C-alpha cells in the first residue's frame, strides 16, 4: 500500500488557524518567555540575578495558569493533527511545572555556592521544559522528535555547565554521544515507519498499522521500525540493557542538574512512550508488549542488584532510577488504558519522589562540599531530627512502603502486570522491591543508627530550599494518604 498523502501534500494542507494557536498557548508562552528571560538576564548585574530566578518561577506559574485555564476534558487536535492536547498531556504538563519549579528552588543556592548561578541555567531548563511539553502533546513523529531534541540538547548543555569540572564535562560528552545515538536510532525507526505507512501523523500510522497485512514487506518494515522506536525509548528512559550512560551522567552532573534530569524528563519520556507505542503503533502491541516486559524485568533486576553495591548516593539513586523505570514499564507492558494510567501515575509519583531524593543531597550540601555519599548522612538524626524524618519519608516512599505515595504507584503497576497475565513479572518486581528496600534502608540507617565522624551532617542555611524540601517530602505522605485525586486523573486520562 503506497502512501496516500505524501509529505508535500501534508504541508500544503497545513494552514495555521487561530484555533491551532489557541490550543498550544502554553507552549507558545513558554517559548516566548524563555527567550525573553534570556534577553533580560543579559542586562542584569550578577548581584541582581535573583530577578531571573523569580521571573523563571513566575513563568512557570503563568504557564500553569494558561494550561489550567482551558484544561482538557477530551482530545483536541491542532496543526492538522500534529499537536494533541488531551487530559494526559495536560496532567503531565502540570506535573512538569511543579517539579521544574521545585528544581529551580533547589538549584539556586547550590549553583550560587559553586559560581554556576547564571542565566543560562534558567533558559536551558525552560527550553527543556518546552521540549517536554511538545513531546507529551505530540501528534506526529516530527513534533515528537522536535521536542525530544530540544529537551536533549538543553540537557547536554546543563550537564556540561560546570566547564572547569572534568567529571561533569566527561559526563556531558558521554551523554551527548550516547544520547545522539539514541536519537539516531529513534529517527531511523521513525523513517522505517514512515516508509511502511506513508505518514508522519500518529493517527494515520495507527490506522495504517491496523490494516497492514501480516508478513508483507510493509508489515516487516513496520515491525522493524517498532523495534527501533522501542530501543530509542528505552535508551532515553535508561531502561536496562540500554542504561549504561545513566549512572555516569547522574553522578558526573552537578547535583542540581541531576535532580532535574532525574525528575521532570521522566514525565516527558512517559508521554513519548505512550504517543509512539499506543497512539502510533498501538495495533502492534502484541509485538512490543513482551519486549517492554523484558525491558522491565531487566531494569528491575539490574538496577536493584547494582544499586546494592553503591556507596555514592548519586550513583545509587541512578541505579534506583533504572529499577523505577522497570516498574514504570510494567504499566506500559499492559498496553491497555489501565496500564497506561498506572504507568502515568508511576511517572508522576516518581518525578516528585526523584526530585525529593536528589533534594535530600542538595539540602546537606554546602559550599565546597557535596553530600554525595551515604556516609555523609550519618548522624543527621542527632543534628537535625526533623530533616532526618523528612529524608526517612522520601526513602520509605522510594522503597514503596505504605502509606507513602511510592506504595500506591507500585500497587497500580503490579495490578497492571497481573491484569496483563504477567504474574511472573509481578513476583519478580516485588522481590526486587525488597532488594530496593535494603539500600534505601542504608540511608535511613546512616541517619538514625550511625554516628557521624566529625560534627555530623549540617543542612544548608537557605530557608527556601529547606521549605521546598519539607513540602516535597510531606507531599509524598499527603499524596499517599489522599491518593484519590491523582489516581483518578490518571485513570480518566486514558478512557477505556
Amino acid at each position, binding site marked *: 500500500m503506497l502512501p496516500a498523502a505524501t509529505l508535500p501534500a501534508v504541508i500544503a494542507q497545513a494552514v495555521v488557524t487561530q484555533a491551532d494557536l489557541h490550543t498550544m498557548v502554553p507552549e507558545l508562552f513558554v517559548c516566548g518567555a524563555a527567550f525573553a528571560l534570556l534577553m533580560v538576564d543579559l542586562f542584569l548585574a550578577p548581584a541582581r540575578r535573583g530577578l531571573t530566578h523569580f521571573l523563571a518561577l513566575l513563568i512557570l506559574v503563568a504557564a500553569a495558569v494558561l494550561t489550567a485555564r482551558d484544561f482538557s476534558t477530551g482530545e483536541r487536535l491542532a496543526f492538522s493533527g500534529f499537536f494533541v492536547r488531551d487530559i494526559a498531556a495536560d496532567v503531565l504538563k502540570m506535573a512538569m511545572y511543579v517539579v521544574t519549579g521545585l528544581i529551580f528552588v533547589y538549584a539556586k543556592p547550590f549553583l550560587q555556592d559553586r559560581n554556576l548561578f547564571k542565566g543560562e541555567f534558567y533558559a536551558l531548563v525552560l527550553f527543556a521544559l518546552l521540549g517536554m511539553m511538545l513531546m507529551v502533546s505530540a501528534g506526529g513523529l516530527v513534533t515528537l522528535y522536535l521536542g525530544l531534541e530540544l529537551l536533549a540538547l538543553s540537557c547536554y548543555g546543563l550537564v556540561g555547565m560546570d566547564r572547569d569540572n572534568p567529571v561533569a564535562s566527561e559526563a556531558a560528552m558521554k551523554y551527548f554521544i550516547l544520547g545522539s545515538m539514541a536519537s539516531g536510532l529513534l529517527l531511523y525507526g521513525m523513517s522505517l515507519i514512515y516508509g511502511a505507512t506513508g505518514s508522519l501523523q500518529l493517527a494515520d500510522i495507527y490506522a495504517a498499522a491496523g490494516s497492514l497485512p501480516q508478513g508483507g514487506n510493509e508489515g516487516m518494515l513496520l515491525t522493524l521500525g517498532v523495534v527501533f522506536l522501542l530501543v530509542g525509548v528505552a535508551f532515553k528512559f535508561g531502561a536496562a540493557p540500554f542504561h549504561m550512560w545513566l549512572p555516569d551522567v547522574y553522578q558526573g552532573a552537578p547535583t542540581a542538574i541531576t535532580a532535574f534530569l532525574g525528575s521532570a524528563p521522566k514525565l516527558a519520556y512517559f508521554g513519548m512512550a505512550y504517543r509512539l507505542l499506543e497512539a502510533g503503533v498501538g495495533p502492534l502491541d502484541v509485538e512490543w508488549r513482551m519486549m517492554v516486559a523484558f525491558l522491565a524485568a531487566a531494569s528491575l533486576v539490574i538496577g536493584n542488584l547494582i544499586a546494592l553495591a553503591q556507596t555514592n548516593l548519586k550513583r545509587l539513586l541512578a541505579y534506583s532510577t533504572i529499577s523505577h523505570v522497570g516498574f514504570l514499564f510494567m504499566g506500559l507492558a499492559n498496553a491497555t488504558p489501565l496500564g497506561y494510567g498506572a504507568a502515568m501515575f508511576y511517572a508522576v509519583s516518581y518525578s516528585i519522589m526523584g526530585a525529593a531524593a536528589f533534594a535530600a543531597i542538595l539540602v546537606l550540601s554546602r559550599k565546597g562540599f557535596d553530600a554525595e555519599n551515604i556516609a555523609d548522612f550519618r548522624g543527621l538524626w542527632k543534628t537535625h*531530627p526533623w530533616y532526618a524524618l523528612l529524608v526517612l519519608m522520601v526513602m520509605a516512599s522510594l522503597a514503596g512502603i505504605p502509606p507513602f505515595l511510592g506504595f500506591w504507584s507500585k500497587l497500580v503497576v503490579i495490578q497492571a502486570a497481573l491484569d496483563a497475565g504477567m504474574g511472573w513479572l509481578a513476583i519478580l518486581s516485588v522481590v526486587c522491591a525488597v532488594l530496593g528496600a*535494603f539500600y534505601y534502608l542504608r540511608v535511613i540507617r546512616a541517619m538514625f*543508627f550511625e554516628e557521624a565522624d566529625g560534627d555530623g551532617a549540617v543542612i544548608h542555611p537557605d530557608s527556601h530550599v529547606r521549605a521546598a524540601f519539607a513540602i516535597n517530602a510531606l507531599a509524598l505522605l499527603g499524596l499517599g494518604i489522599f491518593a484519590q485525586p491523582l489516581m483518578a486523573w490518571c485513570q480518566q486520562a486514558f478512557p477505556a
Partner: protein
Amino acid sequence: MTLPTNWPLLSLLIWLPIFGGAACLFFGDQRAALARNFALLVSILTFVLSIGLFTGIDQSSASMQFVETHPWIPAFKIFYNLGADGISVALIGLTTFVTVLVLLGAWNSIDRRVHQYFASFLILEGLMVGVFCATDAMLFYVFFEAMLIPMFIIIGVWGGPRRVYASVKFFLFTFLGSVFMLIGLIYLYLKGGSFQLADLAALPLEKTEQMWLFFGFLAAFAVKVPMFPVHTWLPDAHVEAPTAGSVVLAAIMLKIGGYGFLRFNLPIVPDASHDWAWLVIAMSLIAVIYIGFVALAQADMKKLIAYSSIAHMGFVTLGTFIAFELARDFGNADAARLGLQGAMVQMISHGFVSGAMFSCVGVLYDRMHSRMIADYGGVVNTMPWFAALFVFFAMANAGLPGTSGFVGEFMVVLAAFQKSPLLAFGAATTLVLGAAYTLWMVKRVVFGKVANAHVAELSDINAREAWVLALFALGVLALGVYPKPLTDLMDAPIVQLVNQLGTSKLF
C-alpha cells in the same frame, strides 16, 4: 458505660495514639519528663476508650460491629472500612492494655531522645489497632506495613550492640513476606473487584488459585508469627531491641500473624488451607518441639524467651489449622471450635506472659546491664518481691494450671487429641519442654546463693515496676482462673469461622 453507637470509636483508638505520638515529637529532647507523662496520658486514655468496645459489643453477634465506612480511594475501590468482632476486640484490648504497661515500664530505662522513643510506641500502638480492625484488605495492608517503620527505628536506635543488623533483618524478613500477600490481594481485586474482606471471603476460587493465594498469605503471616523456618529474625530482634520493644514485639506484633491467618487464610482460601493444613501443622510441631530444645540451650535470657515465644506461637498455628482437619475430615465442628478458641486464648495469654517475662528481664537488665543467665544467681536474696513475680510468670510460661498459659495449651491439646493422640502427644511435649527451659532458667537466675558482688548490690523493684508486673500478673491470673468472659467474647465469630471453613469455595 455504654457509648452512643454513632461514635467513631475505632477511628479514635487508631488516631488518638498516632496524633498523640506526633504531638509527642514536638516536646523536644529537653522536656523528657513532660513527654513521658503526656505519652502515658494518651495511652491511658486510649485504654479507657477501648473499654467502650468491651461494654458496647453484642457478644451474640458474629458480624462486624462499630462499623465505619468511608470511601478512601474510590478510583481503586479502596475503602476506609473499620469494624470489630469479638476476636478484634480482644486483641485491641490487649494492645491498648499492654501499651500502657510498656510505657510505664520504659519510664527510666531510656535516657536519650525520650520524646521520640515514646512517640514511636504511641504511633506503633495506633497502627496495630488499625491492623486489628481494618475490614478493607488494602487498609489492613497499609497498617501492616506502616508498622514496620516505627519498630525498625525502635530496634535500630535504642537497641543493643548488634541493633543495626537485627533491625534490618527484621525489616527485610517481614517486608519480603508481606509483598507476596500484596500480589495476592491485587489478584483478588482483579478477580472480584473488591478489597472488602467480607467480599473476598464470599468469592469463589479455583483450586490452583487458592493454592497460590494461600502461599502468598502464608509468606506474610508465617514470618510475622513467626513459624519455623522463617523465625530466625525473631531471636535477633528480641535480643537487640530495648525492653519495651521486645514486649511490644512479643505481646502484640506476633499476634498479628495469628490474626492474619484467621482473617485471610481461613475465610478466603479455605480449600487450600485444608489441603495444606498438614504443612502448617508440621511446621507448628517442629516449632513446638525443636524450638523448645533450642530454647533449652540458650545462655541469654532474652533469647530464651524469644525461642519460647516461637514455641508458644506454634500452638496458635497448630490450633488454627487443626480446625480444618476436624471440621472437614472428621465433621467434628465442636472440636474445631475448641481448637480455634484455644489458639485465640493462647494468643491473648501469650501476650500477657511474654510481655511480663520480657519486662522482668528488663528490670534485671536496667540494674545489671546484662542478659546473660550466667551473670546472675541468687537474685531472690536481694530482690524477693521481684523473684516472687518472676517465678509466677515463669510458671505461667510453663503452662501451670491456674495461669493463663495452661488454658490455651490445654484446649489446643484437647482438640489435637480428637484428631490423633500422637499429634496431641507431640504438642503436649511443650508442657514438659516449656517447664524445663523456663524453670531451669529461673533456677539459675533467681535461686541459689548470691552469685557475685553485683547481684549482692541489687535493689528490689520500685513502685512503678511493681505496678507494671502486678498488672501483668493480674491479667495472667484472671485469664487462668476464669477464662469464660474471653471465650464468650470470641465465641460467635469463631463459630461463624468454623462454618466458613467447613464449606468449600470451589465451584
